[in-house]
């Protein structure tokens, strides 16, 4: 299929991108004052020169940069993400433990932002410049301007502290031993506030773009043709305008995938979720180079995967690019 070939070519072209990212960051991190061993030693409460040197040799941090980079890339090709000095476990397992929470959070946030953003954008465009439009557009602007972590905190104040409807943080009720559907519902309860918080700004963006896109498409010639055929306004919107207007929004999802991952760092910190975002933050603070690069690798893969799906979706919507 031509579509698969097109997307396959895209995947192949992602390899140099990944390469640039990893090499770039590896070199960047060499500039950091202090490395894993320093942090370890600090954790242990201090040590002498000899110990530090021993540790360095153990973790291979005494070799020249080029060699370290070469070794790392070689291991990466074999999908060996290295060993985390701070957690005392292979990086891969640390990441795998934290991956589900992030995936769940991102997935639900993206779904919410996309569906609500599109629905509201269409509504605003249908009633352009009248009060529903003004209301929706204003709300959108306010959502966009709200710092997500602040929204999360205020959400905790209102829903967890004052009203006690939702839990203030964490992933699930610890020690309750739920299983199956009960567990799913329990996790869902814990994820309501974090999802809303993460989805907020993206909802605002999709809303604005969808509204602008709808208004743009409504001025195009083929809409006039449809009206000249006697098609009802409702049918014009649904059958002609919507699909065309969706195209830029779909592209946007791919472009914003990385930003959403970044947003999860803050949201996971606010709500104490055991996800990749928080892991990244901790790795930075603790100078855990291996883990950090591992997270970068995995998140880059995630973004590439999302873009892959977006490309497929776009190709299905728009016959012109095949």
């Amino acid at each position, binding site marked *: 299929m031509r579509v698969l*070939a097109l997307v396959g070519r895209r995947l192949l072209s992602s390899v140099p991108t990944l390469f640039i990212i990893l090499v770039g960051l590896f070199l960047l991190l060499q500039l950091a004052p202090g490395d894993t061993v320093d942090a370890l030693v600090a954790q242990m409460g201090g040590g002498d020169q000899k110990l530090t040197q021993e540790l360095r040799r153990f973790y291979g941090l005494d070799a020249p940069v080029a060699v370290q980079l070469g070794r790392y890339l070689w291991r990466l090709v074999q999908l060996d993400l290295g060993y985390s000095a701070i957690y005392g476990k292979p990086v891969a397992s640390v990441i795998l433990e934290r991956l589900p929470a992030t995936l769940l959070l991102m997935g639900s946030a993206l779904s919410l932002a996309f569906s609500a953003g599109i629905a509201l954008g269409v509504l605003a465009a249908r009633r352009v410049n009248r009060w529903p439009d003004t209301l929706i557009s204003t709300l959108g602007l306010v959502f966009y301007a709200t710092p997500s972590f602040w929204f999360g905190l205020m959400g905790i104040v209102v829903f967890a502290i004052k009203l006690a409807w939702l839990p203030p943080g964490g992933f699930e009720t610890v020690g309750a031993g739920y299983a199956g559907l009960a567990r799913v519902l329990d996790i869902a309860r814990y994820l309501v506030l974090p999802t809303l918080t993460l989805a907020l700004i993206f909802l605002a963006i999709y809303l604005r773009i969808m509204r602008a896109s709808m208004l743009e498409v409504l001025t195009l010639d083929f809409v006039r043709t449809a009206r*000249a055929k*006697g098609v009802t306004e409702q049918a014009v919107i649904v*059958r002609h305008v919507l699909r*065309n207007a969706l195209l830029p929004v779909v592209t946007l999802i791919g472009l914003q995938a990385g930003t959403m991952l970044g947003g999860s760092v803050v949201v996971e910190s606010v709500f104490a979720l055991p996800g990749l975002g928080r892991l990244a933050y901790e790795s930075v603070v603790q100078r855990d180079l291996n883990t950090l690069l591992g997270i970068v690798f995995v998140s880059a893969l995630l973004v590439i995967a999302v873009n892959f799906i977006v490309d497929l979706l776009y190709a299905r*919507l728009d016959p012109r690019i095949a």
Partner: protein
Amino acid sequence: MNALLEIENLSVALPRGADRALALDGVSLTLQAGEILCVVGESGSGKTMTANAAMRLLPLGVGVAGGTIRFEGRDILALPEAEMRQLRGRRIAMVFQEPMTALNPLRPIGDQIGEMFRTHTGLGRAEIDARILGLLDEVRIPDPRSAARAYPHELSGGQRQRAMIAMALALEPTVLIADEPTTALDVTTQAQILHLIRELQRKKGTAVLFITHDFGVVGEIADRVAVMQSGRLVETDSVAEVLDRPKHAYTRMLLAAVPPLEAPPARTVSAEAVLSIDRVSKTYVTRGSGLRKRSTLALDNVTLSLPKGSTLGIVGESGSGKSTLAKCLVRLIAPDAGAIRMSDVDLAHLSRREAKRATARIQMVFQDPYGSLNPRRRAGELVAQGPIAHGLAPEEARARAKKLFALVGLDPTATDRYPHEFSGGQRQRIGLARALALEPEILVADEPVSSLDVSVQAQVLELLAQLRARLGLSMVFITHDLRVAAQICDRVAVMKDGRVMEEGLAADVFSAPRHAYTQALIEAIPRRRQPLH
């Protein structure tokens, strides 16, 4: 004769801030059953607005200010929207100018034609599919079955327009409104579509309201004519009356501005060639989907020469390579093979510095009066830029600009204004002044009048002829319109698919074309076919 569409004293108001208060001012038209009424006018005449009003599809902010429109006896301005929607498509249908944008790019053609049936009838799917194929067959689209499954971008311009006509005539409406349906098409395709419309019209007895700016088209298909200017109806009568005995001054002016089909007698020109194009070839390589590369041969071994002081016309349809050739002449594109020699200098193989000096001797006038001038620069600066870039002192350059303004018929004090303050015709004059600022020997004009109204066209062509005489210019004139080429060119070369099909004196090419393609091209030019209609 029963009148199907009666427009009586219609006035349509534009929103506040438009260049005039009324788009239409007291327009009265009638369309009889079974006839083709051509509404002719230049841009801003209100002809499209009349069509939109008849469908009650006026744009936002524009409203009817007075008058009535009656369709089959009913006052359609008073109809509720739901009933009007039932009329649209079923009793009154419309075909638009740009087939590429008038069709939804994301839906197959068959689906869009089928929408007509789905909206207005209760027919089942199989029946609709059969009718779609029948319609596509009627409009002579090759391979109707795959055309029905195709998307708009997969068809050619002419095929798309045929599909639009099929869609419009699907429910056998009594009135078809065609808003410049052939303006965006090549001359040969235009001839085919006009023929198709006339044939279908005769077969089904549809009344057609045909909007155009081209009097040639009027002569080709009209039964009656209505001439519009600035929102008013100027004259309306049978086609014979209007074409032979025009009563209004505006009609007479429009008819006079249409370039006739015969070339004026040949002038004597020098034998020395100031520009010789020698076996020039150019291939464009585009990356298609996947890793396949698609190469298009834009120019194929083109050999032409331009005698000193004369004008060479290069005529062709879209894709003929004429624009590519023009760009090669002014070094915007480098040819892959061949040489372009000006006197003794080979333009195609010069170093950057030499090229700069050489390009001062050969300058270009562009097609789009709106896109060819930087909107953020004053008109005088635009003309003075060239000489300044070639070393002339700014003061002198600006003085030269003022002189050139006078030369091209513009007010020299207008050099301080911005492009948007000038009309289309005036902008082309500025473009001309810019090209002449470097005192070139050769002027390449790439479709300089194609975007202008007919009356303005005549003026600009007149100006070019004057300048040619005064400055002793040699000109290469690129156009798709043979009639325009006949007016101003001494020699004409006809191009197709990157090759020169025929070349010779303008008078010869017109009166006795040798190549089949030239003959087809001339035959396709819309004009009156019989002395009396």
